[in-house]
């Protein structure tokens, strides 16, 4: 390793730091003022890239030159800025006071909508943009060639930092933004129209996302996966830098850029692992990141299941439901049984998330991590140890439980939005490992041939097995929720200081909740692997996590039985509607948004609430 190599790597790191900073800066700006973590920020980035990759070549045809190129980039960012305004007016301003879980879900609904819209508008192929005029020739540094466009990027980061700094320090808008970041109500009491301020902030945030995306076009083809990959990185940058802090984002981006550039030498399979370690380190020392300040956690931000008296008809009802479910193979065809098996598995998956969110108030946005760990644990046992199903499924459960213990160990210090973002980041890292560690995990193709033994092969048998296992697991989790453990979690959810003052070990209970929820989701994942016969990285992806959240939301977070109903409804709908339309994600996204806006109690919750009102 010589000096020139190190220099080139460092420059590469600076270039990616710049790109990352420009995008993350918009996210942190928007969060600072609105207190919303805008999941759709990555979508805005993607739209910026697609817009630029489409627009800039047309402009260059009319007049070829550097000025045209850069004007096209800025124009694309402006277009995205306008989309940001629409987003604020149509959606965000309706959810500023909603619990953060709903805010994240609603903006994830927007992510889904954009995914379909982008394909419809720009087509399904990746689009590589033109090279930047004037920067096509690499330059030579210590005898090595380095793309000159990367140098332009390296300069762009500090330019944006300077521009944002001037905006925030030298303009009335900027002063108001900084004031609102600290105390929105006081800003209103001084006569400032928050709506305008927020719309303006969203414009700036979206503009920066669009700029970040547009600047990528000469180096990366615009593609439909950019939204989620960039949002996970932005989450890391903003959390490490401190939510709402622009200089923090810059510093974090610089460090992460270098870590990625040099980390590749240590962990060639997943640079994200290094980033993850950094994040763990920073958050262990400074729970609010470099320059973040402690969040004022309001009571309105937790939603959960109330402590309730056990329903007396409960056990009888449950037995009746079990009998009916067990009788299903008598009338159902194999396809229906497959769907029913998956619904049971997803119900367990969603229910384990309910333990974290509904009971513990721990908003996990990366529950797929445990589902995927369970599935991979089982599949790896089959592939490498030639284990039978009866060994493989418990291995999956154990791996996921261990994952819950590990991830939980450093997440229990966090709360609120930090927790949500970190769980998501943890899941993304596992996703990256599964994707990149091809030798072991099979990479993108995953692992196939994960079948149950011959006697359990018929759909009816596997369905009954799944029914038995999930029923036992659900029963166990319910007992856990009704036990003192569950009450302790609820107490900590409703008021952490009060729970601590009566002597509850809040962190230990939360850690155990992660272990239990991880094991539950892992069991579901392992069963899923054997139901499908294969595993692939998508089981660890953000959409899988959001599926679990959607099931919770559908069923109602306040209701214990909500996730079961939610799993049935979502899976059945998906099975029924998805083959009929290319707009499944758009429909799902709009449904999630609608639910958050008008139906936040979910199906079961609404029914029960109606009953209470009438009583």
């Amino acid at each position, binding site marked *: 390793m010589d000096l020139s190599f190190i220099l080139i790597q460092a420059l590469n790191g600076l270039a990616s730091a710049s790109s990352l900073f420009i995008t993350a800066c918009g996210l942190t700006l928007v969060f600072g003022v609105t207190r919303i973590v805008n999941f759709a920020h990555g979508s805005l980035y993607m739209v910026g890239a697609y817009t630029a990759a489409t627009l800039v070549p047309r402009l260059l045809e009319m007049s070829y030159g550097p000025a045209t190129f850069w004007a096209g980039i800025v124009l694309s960012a402006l277009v995205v800025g306008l989309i940001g305004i629409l987003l604020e007016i149509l959606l965000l301003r309706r959810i500023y006071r909603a619990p953060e879980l709903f805010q994240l879900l609603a903006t994830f609904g927007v992510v889904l909508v954009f995914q379909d819209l982008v394909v419809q508008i720009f087509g399904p192929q990746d689009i590589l943009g033109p090279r930047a005029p004037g920067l096509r020739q690499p330059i030579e540094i210590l005898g090595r060639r380095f793309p000159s466009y990367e140098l332009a990027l390296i300069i762009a980061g500090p330019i944006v930092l300077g521009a944002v700094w001037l905006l925030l320090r030298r303009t009335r808008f900027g002063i108001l933004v900084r004031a609102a970041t600290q*105390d929105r109500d006081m800003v*209103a*009491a001084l*006569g*400032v129209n928050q709506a305008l301020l927020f719309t303006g902030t969203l414009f700036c945030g979206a503009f920066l996302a669009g700029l970040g995306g547009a600047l990528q076009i000469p180096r990366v083809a615009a593609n439909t996966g950019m939204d989620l990959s960039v949002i996970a990185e932005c989450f890391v940058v903003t959390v490490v830098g401190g939510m709402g802090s622009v200089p923090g984002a810059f510093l974090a981006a610089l460090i992460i850029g270098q870590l990625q550039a040099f980390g590749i030498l240590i962990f060639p399979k997943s640079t994200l692992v290094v980033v993850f370690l950094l994040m763990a380190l920073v958050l262990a020392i400074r729970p609010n990141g470099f320059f973040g300040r402690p969040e004022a956690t309001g009571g309105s931000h937790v939603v959960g299941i109330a402590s309730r008296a056990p329903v007396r008809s409960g056990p009888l009802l449950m037995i009746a439901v079990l009998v009916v479910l067990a009788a299903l193979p008598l009338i159902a065809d194999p396809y229906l049984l497959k769907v029913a098996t998956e619904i049971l598995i997803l119900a367990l998956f969603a229910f384990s998330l309910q333990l974290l969110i509904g009971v513990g108030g721990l908003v996990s946005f990366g529950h797929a991590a445990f589902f995927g760990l369970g599935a991979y644990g089982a599949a790896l046992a089959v592939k490498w140890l030639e284990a039978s199903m009866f060994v493989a499924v418990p291995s999956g459960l154990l791996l996921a439980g261990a994952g819950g213990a590990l991830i939980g160990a450093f997440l229990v210090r966090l709360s609120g939005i930090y927790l949500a973002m970190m769980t998501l980041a943890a899941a993304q890292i596992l996703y990256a490992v599964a994707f990149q560690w091809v030798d072991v995990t099979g990479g993108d193709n995953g692992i196939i041939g994960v079948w149950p033994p011959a006697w359990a092969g018929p759909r009816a048998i596997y369905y009954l097995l799944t029914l038995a296992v999930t029923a036992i697991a659900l029963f166990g989790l319910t007992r856990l929720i009704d036990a003192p453990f569950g009450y302790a979690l609820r107490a900590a959810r409703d008021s952490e200081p009060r729970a601590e003052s009566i002597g509850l070990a809040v962190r230990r209970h939360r850690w155990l909740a992660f272990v239990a929820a991880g094991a539950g989701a892992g069991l579901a994942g392992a069963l899923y692997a054997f139901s499908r016969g294969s595993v692939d990285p998508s089981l660890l992806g953000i959409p899988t996590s959001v599926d679990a959240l959607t099931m919770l939301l559908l069923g109602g977070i306040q209701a214990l039985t909500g996730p079961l109903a939610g799993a049935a409804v979502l899976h059945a709908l998906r099975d029924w509607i998805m083959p009929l339309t290319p707009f499944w994600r758009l429909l799902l996204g709009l449904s999630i948004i609608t639910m958050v806006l008008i139906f936040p109690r979910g199906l079961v919750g609404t029914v029960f609430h109606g009953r209470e009102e009438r009583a």
Partner: protein
Amino acid sequence: MNPLLDVSGLKASYGRAQVLFGLSFQLEPGEVTALIGRNGAGKTTTLKAIVSLIPAQADRLVFKGHPISGLSTYRIARLGLGYVPEDRRIFTDLTVEENLEVGRQGARPGRSPWTPERLFRLFPNLATMKRRRGNEMSGGEQQMLSIARTLMGNPDAILLDEPSEGIAPVLVQAMAEAVRAMKSEGVAILLSEQNWAFAAAVADKACVIERGEMRYQGPMADFMNDEALRRQTLGV
């Protein structure tokens, strides 16, 4: 002459706990009215309810002839009703000058607008620390800044919540002078106080509330002379 601020039947609750039980009072233009009551009587709640910072109901809530019930906080402020919270709520990351800038609104017809220069004359302490950030200021300095910031909006009336609380005794005198100076500029003030000596020094009228209900309304001097009433409502 119509009152500047006309409140009648004001009720407010936190969750299920009702705190205000139908308060009625008026604030006349250019006058200082003291809202007097013990800690927890409901003074702060009254002020917040008027500017819509908390939900409230009222039979009549009118400012300068505009019904302001249900109006958003910023619109009420734009009409010229300023609010200075008891916890001051200075933007601690912003400098003194920037704090003032946040409060700035356009001039109102017929009156010369407040400028930072004029305010620095009113609060000479602040003049020496224009570039200082809010978190580097003492409680009394923050209180001055909070008032100055609200004045930047050129209000016709200010709701001033316990300005004398928690500040150094030497500053209390300066605060009283500032209140008189604002009054002489034609700004009406609704002053929430439990320190009756301070109220007596600046207020024309007294409204005494106890557990969310109005106990007494009348000239400040009469309240001062009625020792029995003072003992009953304030314990002094």
